[in-house]
């Protein structure tokens, strides 16, 4: 029986290229979309497991509008075997809790015999890093975030390296379980044949009904958190501008400011 890995990815706007509308909201039109860089680490990790001489099936899934098929085609080209897009107007406006619930319903209904779920540590648009832990809870399985390396994979457990604030740990997780890997900026360059093949492969598109979801738990309705206000960061300091003096005079000025703040402390 194949060892089934579910890789959850997100299509994100290229955050290096954010532009603003005159109303101080983010200009979404014309924004390039890419696979979240951390999710490339997740795909890479799944590919690595596949290379370990095992019968591995990689199922890649994302939730989003129909355009997200682009990212799934890319993921197929990078080595994933099957791709699912969870797409329904009812899913829109989902926060991390509603997203985790929707993903969990997909996994329970379509890949019930999964062994491993791999997510990227966080998405570069939201930076919340909440969906993986939330999803593990919804699936009722063990989890580990900030995973940097697979050490050993057996039939019913896996050994991983995990980073915390104070240490690097070697941990053992039973299978099935979920890991979020924090390998960012990985380049996966599929060859041209994989690209051509992936463009021809079918992406399975699933709506709310086919996932057997409770409508109160999905999309905007199922999202407890709401954005009350979004704004461009505003700096509140008043700046005193100093120019046309000598560097010697500025050095004296800086020293006096340093002495002032040291004196405050005495």
């Amino acid at each position: 029986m194949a060892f089934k890995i579910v890789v959850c990815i997100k299509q994100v706007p290229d955050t290096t290229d954010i532009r603003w509308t005159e109303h101080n909201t983010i200009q979404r039109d014309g924004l390039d979309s890419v696979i979240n860089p951390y999710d490339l680490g997740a795909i890479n990790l799944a590919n690595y497991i596949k290379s370990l001489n095992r019968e591995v099936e990689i199922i890649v899934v994302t939730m989003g509008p129909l355009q997200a098929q682009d990212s799934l085609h890319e993921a197929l080209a990078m080595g994933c075997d099957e791709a699912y897009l969870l797409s329904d107007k009812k899913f829109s406006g989902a926060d991390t809790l509603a997203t985790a619930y929707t993903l969990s319903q997909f996994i329970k209904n379509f890949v019930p015999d999964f062994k491993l779920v791999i997510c990227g540590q966080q998405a570069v648009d939201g930076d919340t890093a909440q969906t993986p832990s939330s999803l593990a809870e919804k699936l009722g399985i063990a989890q580990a975030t900030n995973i940097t390396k697979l050490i050993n994979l057996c039939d019913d457990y896996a050994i991983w390296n995990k980073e915390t604030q104070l240490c690097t740990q070697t941990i053992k997780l039973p299978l099935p379980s979920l890991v979020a890997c924090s390998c960012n900026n990985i380049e996966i360059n599929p060859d041209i044949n994989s690209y051509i093949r992936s463009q021809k492969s079918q992406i399975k598109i699933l709506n709310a009904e086919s996932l057997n979801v409770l409508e109160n738990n999905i999309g905007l309705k199922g999202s407890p958190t709401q954005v009350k206000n979004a704004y461009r960061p505003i700096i509140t300091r008043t700046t005193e501008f100093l120019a046309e003096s000598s560097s010697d005079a500025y050095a004296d000025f800086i020293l006096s400011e340093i002495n002032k703040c040291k004196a405050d402390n005495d």
Partner: protein
Amino acid sequence: MTKNVLVYIEIDENKAARVSKEIISHALSNFSDADINGIVLADEQAINLALDDLKKCGVNKLYILKDNLFDTHSTCLFAGVLERFILENKPDILLIGATPDGRDLAPRLASKLNIGLTADCTDLQVDSEGKLLATRPTYGGKMMATIISKTLPDFATVRPGAFKYNPNAVHNEPELVYINPDISGLSSLMEIISSENKPRIDDWTCSEVIIAGGLGLKTKENFDLIYKLAELLKAKPAASRAAVEQGWAPQDIQVGQTGNSVSPKLYIAFGISGAMQHTAGITNSDKIIAVNTDKDAPIMHTADFAIQSDAVDIINSLIQKLSN
């Protein structure tokens, strides 16, 4: 009506973690009409070693949940224990430090309770109706979003360094509430096989004076002057992301959205243009001096004093004055 605030306190090196203290300090001075309590999960030994410091945190009640299984952080176990505590005690607001362990734990707990959670906040306020307004940077710090939740408790994780902690504040001793938690049916699921401590860098992010350098210093040799100046001033050196990417400085001393948030009394930015990425990490500084040749660089509009001049000349002049 008095809001019942519960802060999850992590223990770090026999003390309450700095971020936990920062959260409590912020709540004490910003939440009006709030009853601020703390909860700690640890084994007996860790509690005994940290108790003196825990008492100084400023909370009214400190719930101490003790079990031998709590000797290391375990998200699955701790989330189960906290779920039971929260269902029983019903706090209005729940706050956790956005450390790697905190950000692992909080979403699992929120998912168990089916409640909203706002990640990695840099500001927290309570509105007139007593709801938590949780503000966080998003899109890599290019946008700020204020989030409210429809569910209770209001729940947020808080970025280390986002709030100021005043170590000199004197607080009343908390009432200690010891609880032997019911852990039946709960297990850790994760086994730690080995653990290697990372070299600990002393906490420089809240030192008095921070001297930071950026791309405007042009060469690694010039950047090295930042270290020299910092040493002469007994200040801490820091770098912008661009300087780190050039290989002039290690990532440990990077300031900004993807680096460290700092809160010194005085932050001096030499040759840093001050992209939002960077300024997001310095807003808690009491005073900012920026030195840049480009008067239109963003940092020149975010500092208290903007000096249009060559950074290297001024650094050399400072080093000369201090060496004499």
